[in-house]
């Protein structure tokens, strides 16, 4: 393995969610920042153990919802009161009192609010996570395929200021990591 390939990270494997959780707390306390826990399913409380704050994706979704609401509002009002007023059921065809009694065409506004929010949630999550990304260096580590099965991993990136091939490795060993290995940028 004497190679000159660029190191991406050090990875360690854990057997259970509990082991990973305790290990994560130690890494957090050791002051690392560019690291992540990889798990087959979301582990409750791991955000806290890693010292992460709340996801603000919800704020983005809210903004998308507001956009959807405004889009819907403009769609129904501009067309019904401005571009193409249809007299039907004696309902208002003018901006006033139309705007004050919008419930007779509220459902499209409602549905567009939900539609835009749902797009925001889905694509916001995908983009916020930097996906799609098919060629990530962690995939070079053959053991990592188990992350979608039953193994738990901690990956500490080389970009981290506290990263040191020897010290980080020692820390991971100390907290119970198994199969600790260097992950390279290029394929093995």
């Amino acid at each position, binding site marked *: 393995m004497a190679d000159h390939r660029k190191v991406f990270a050090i990875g360690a494997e854990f057997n*259970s*969610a*509990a*082991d990973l*959780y*305790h290990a994560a707390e130690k890494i957090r306390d050791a002051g690392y920042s560019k690291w*992540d*826990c*990889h*798990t*087959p*399913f*979301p*582990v*409750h*409380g*791991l*955000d806290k*153990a890693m010292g*992460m704050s709340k*996801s603000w*994706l*919800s704020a983005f*979704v809210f903004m998308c919802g507001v956009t959807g609401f405004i889009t819907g509002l403009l*769609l129904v009002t501009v*067309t*019904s009161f401005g571009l*193409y007023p*249809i007299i*039907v*059921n004696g309902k208002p065809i003018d901006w006033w009192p139309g705007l004050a009694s919008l419930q007779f065409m509220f*459902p*499209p506004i409602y*549905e*567009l609010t*939900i*539609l835009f*929010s*749902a*797009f925001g*949630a*889905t694509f*916001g*999550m*995908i983009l916020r*996570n930097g*996906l799609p*990304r*098919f*060629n*990530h260096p962690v995939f070079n580590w053959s053991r990592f395929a*188990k*992350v*979608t*099965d*039953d193994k738990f991993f901690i*990956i500490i990136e080389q970009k981290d200021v506290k990263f040191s091939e020897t010290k980080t490795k020692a820390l991971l060993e*100390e*907290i*119970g990591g198994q199969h600790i290995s260097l992950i390279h940028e290029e394929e093995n």
Partner: protein
Amino acid sequence: MATNEQKAMDSYEVVLHCPKELERVPLVKNDRSFAWITEKVAVICEEPTRKWWWICFFLFAPIALFVPTLLAYQVGNGVGVWGENQPFGWAWDITNFVFWIGIGHAGTLISAILFLTRQKWRTSINRAAEAMTLFAVMCAGLYPGFHVGKFWKAWYLAPVPNYNGIWQNFRSPLLWDVFAVSTYFTVSVLFWYVGLIPDLATLRDRAKSKVKQIAYGIAALGWRGGNRHWQHYEMAYLVLAGLSTPLVLSVHSIVSFDFATSVIPGWHTTIFPPYFVAGAIFGGFAMVLTLMLPARLLYPQLDDMITRQHVDKMTKIILLTGSIVGYAYLMELFVAMVYSGNFYEYNAFYNRATGWYDWHYAMMMFCNVVAPQIFWFKKMRQNYIVVFFICQLVNMGMWYERFVIIGTTLAQDFLPSSWGHYTPSWVEVFTFIGTFGMFITLFIIFMRFLPMITIFEVKAVKKEADPHYHPEGDHKDEENKPKEAAAH
């Protein structure tokens, strides 16, 4: 008692352990490991295609072909090939539309509302139920689209600027329907796909052939399961569940507005939205069980994940919503016959129950109100044959309900001179049969290529998934982790 309390104060364990009869039954039977769950679910997509699959496929796919064939025939010859005519402007087509769209609602209820209410048992059935939702909405969407007559002008429903400068009538519940159903379908697809991403990554990591690796790999978007990703993922899932809940309630409410906002006696009622939503969930759960019970039979390994407990809970929901529907039927009768004092309202319901379509009404009452009452008995809820049979009655009953609401009302409205009878044409009958073929074909294709159980969520409801779980109890922490203990 005093000593017990004392004990409880002294030892943490006594507080945590409840009496045996109150203990929760684990959601995954036989204490299966994470690897077991991955293996047993993923293997369905990986093993060579089974014989029964091909049999089902070649049985249902030709039936599914009725749909494009007969719709082409309808487009070529006009809506006249369907049996509907004045006063029967809406007949089997809208009945089938409401029937199919209603079925979809159970999927969204399981995936969204049960998620928000933290019903963990939903995890093993939500994927299949959501798939069912999508396929049911596809079947539903065909009907209004083709019912417009000039199918090539169906795009007029979409608010796009056009040469004539015409815009839609946003005051019409029919247009609300277009928005509601298309939003419902889109959001259901997004929700379903977001739920699929981690499981697609599982299939990608297990795939042996290059083609599968690439196909599942692209679909999984390069998912790595990092907690920094899970954090946003969980938020997105929560938000989508929160969005789908008002959405699913609005969709069937809006479908009911199609009727409720008209002036026809029998339709013009305010009870419709809650009554339709309860009916939709009722019928949808029956369809979920209709699909899941045979699936359990075909894949015995699913037995540990879709347990008797799951079936039991679903039948209880059927009982609950069936009773709500029954209450709505009776309330509707009471309002029309006694409370309203309206002659036409009275007659509409009198004719429903005793008129030309009286046996439809009787079927509806029996299948939807009487039959599910058997689920009061635990023995019946545990008997899969009974459950399956009752679910078929419910499926049927819900179709009759929609026909009773739509058909009988239109047949006999205000003036006897404008009454009219209706019989479906062969085109309508076979199109409807075709939608069942389409529904089942799509479902078995889904079973073959995508994990029908949400692998990662089932793992997450196991007790081992809790980071504070230790096999020998909390206080023996150190013994289980010698390495960590040494570090202290």
